[in-house]
């Protein structure tokens, strides 16, 4: 048997430097996972292409919406990145089930690192999806009509919102503890939520009850912000009545800040006490 070398500790500096280093190690783990799990690649690359093509080519004719492709893209962006954020929920539940959380929790690492790595993983997935979708969208005629700043702003709003939402999902994943339940529940809740919004059809075409839900739906505010920043709004549509939809960018920023302020500390606290069975 080989003699064991006596490992030496590297000085890790301030707690912040340690957080960055641990966060990066945990992120790298999720990047490797993206590379190795084929379903994630399909979800990240193929599904967005399919959605853009299906909606823009198949539905466009039937939709009585002028310039449907430009109307549609912000909706597809929003739906895709919101679903992309649910990975964190399922992955935290899976990690608990696999017991690897117990391994992490017996290591002298920053308690936020695993969560940072997880939400970063979603951010990377969503960024790749966004690029793929923007490329595909451009091919079918989607154009940004504002400026570079508008474009960057739109991308930032979508990614930041979904990033914050990843932290919400992480807390849910640690509470529910079952990846299957998380996946099913996300589908059951997020699918209607993204459809009863202005993502795929203009709100003024909906029946009264749905119209109210859609106007106050935070997804609508997100989609509307992106549309405004990309310059894809249609001036002929009637003014929305909900404050959130009249001020979509502020609404989304408030949403991001509130989600982060509540769910980042909550998930770190939760992480410090969980253990698999």
């Amino acid at each position, binding site marked *: 048997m080989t003699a064991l*070398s006596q*490992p030496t500790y590297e000085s890790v500096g301030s707690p912040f430097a340690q957080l960055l*280093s641990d966060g990066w190690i945990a992120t790298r783990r999720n990047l490797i996972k993206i590379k190795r799990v084929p379903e994630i690649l399909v979800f990240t690359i193929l599904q967005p292409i399919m959605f853009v093509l299906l909606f823009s080519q198949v539905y466009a004719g039937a939709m009585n919406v002028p310039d449907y492709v430009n109307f549609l893209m912000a909706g597809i962006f929003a739906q895709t990145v919101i679903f992309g954020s649910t990975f964190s929920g399922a992955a935290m539940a899976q990690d608990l089930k*696999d017991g690897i959380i117990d391994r992490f929790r*017996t290591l002298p690492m920053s308690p936020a690192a695993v969560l940072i790595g997880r939400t970063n993983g979603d951010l990377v997935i969503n960024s790749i999806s966004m690029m793929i979708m923007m490329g595909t969208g451009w091919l079918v005629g989607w154009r940004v009509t504002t400026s570079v700043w508008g474009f960057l702003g739109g991308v930032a709003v979508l990614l930041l919102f979904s990033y914050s939402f990843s932290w919400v999902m992480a807390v849910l994943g640690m509470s529910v503890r079952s990846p299957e339940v998380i996946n099913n529940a996300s589908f059951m809740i997020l699918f209607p939520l993204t459809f009863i919004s202005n993502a795929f059809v203009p709100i003024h075409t909906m029946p009264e009850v749905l119209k109210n839900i859609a106007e106050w739906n935070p997804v609508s505010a997100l989609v509307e912000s992106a549309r405004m920043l990309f310059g894809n709004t249609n001036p002929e549509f009637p003014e929305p009545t909900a404050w959130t939809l009249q001020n979509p960018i502020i609404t989304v920023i408030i949403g991001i800040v509130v989600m982060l302020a509540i769910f980042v500390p909550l998930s770190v606290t939760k992480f410090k006490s969980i253990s698999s069975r």
Partner: protein
Amino acid sequence: MTIIQAEGLKKTYTSKSGPVHALAGLNLSVPQGTVKALLGPNGAGKTTAVKVLTTLIKPDEGRAHIDGIDVVNNPKAARRIIGASGQYAAVDENLTGFENLEMVGRLYHLGAKTARKRAQELIDQFELTEAGNRPVKGFSGGMRRRIDLAGALVINPKILFLDEPTTGLDPRSRLALWEIITQLVNDGTTLLLTTQYLEEADHLADNIAVIDGGRVIAEGTSDELKAQIGGHRVVVTLVNEADAGSAREILARHGDGAPTVNDRTLEVSVIEGPRALQYVLSDLGQADIQLHDAGMRRPTLDDVFLTLTGHRAEDEPSTNDSEMEKAK
């Protein structure tokens, strides 16, 4: 010097069928450089005890120190000196064996270079070359288990906690792990392990704590524990089961305690082995009872376990109970 010290640990879980006292006032004390085995039936509280000591859960009551560090109030300091492997292998399925171990090293804050070097050493030591460069997913349970165990050894920890380390390992890997453990302990590591295998406790442990119902119910070296439950046992196997009744009387006459009867095999604990065996054999001969086999044996840790946790004692009344149920 005592390096692991737990006093009055209590942990109660609520389940659908009422509260479960996973730990009900557990005390433990392990001297530095020794191996302590926690032995106990399913649900005894072994895993819960290990989880408290490895900072995974907080006890409801009681205190625990490792190397003078309070694990409840100062978990981070405790984590710097421990290595732990839980009851179920905790590895990242999508990483290779090497990547898993390297990640653990980096999160212990070994430098990047040291972490890689260490990962490679462990891959070699645990004969994981095959799993080293392929994702863990798809490897056998035993292979995962070994990667997980290697993960507990990344820093050559001062204190090592292993929860049922050899469950699911083939005999060869088990022996290899025993060898690694023995060397670590020779190099000064203190080990607390839980096990269902008496042979393992007997082989590895300097001291054994038998746990049941969240408490230590007996403690000592394996010889001390065996002595506690009596000396030798006389075992006879009859040719005809019909003789069991009279044979039982004879064994009871010369034994210390009630004989146990298992088909044609009867057993009784005795104070003085050879002499009791002689008496038993001569009485059986006089009663004209034919024997298939007869002999004397020392108690095994199995006897200790079963006697102390009351499971063998419970066996008979509970069968009687169920028979009475049926009779009604």
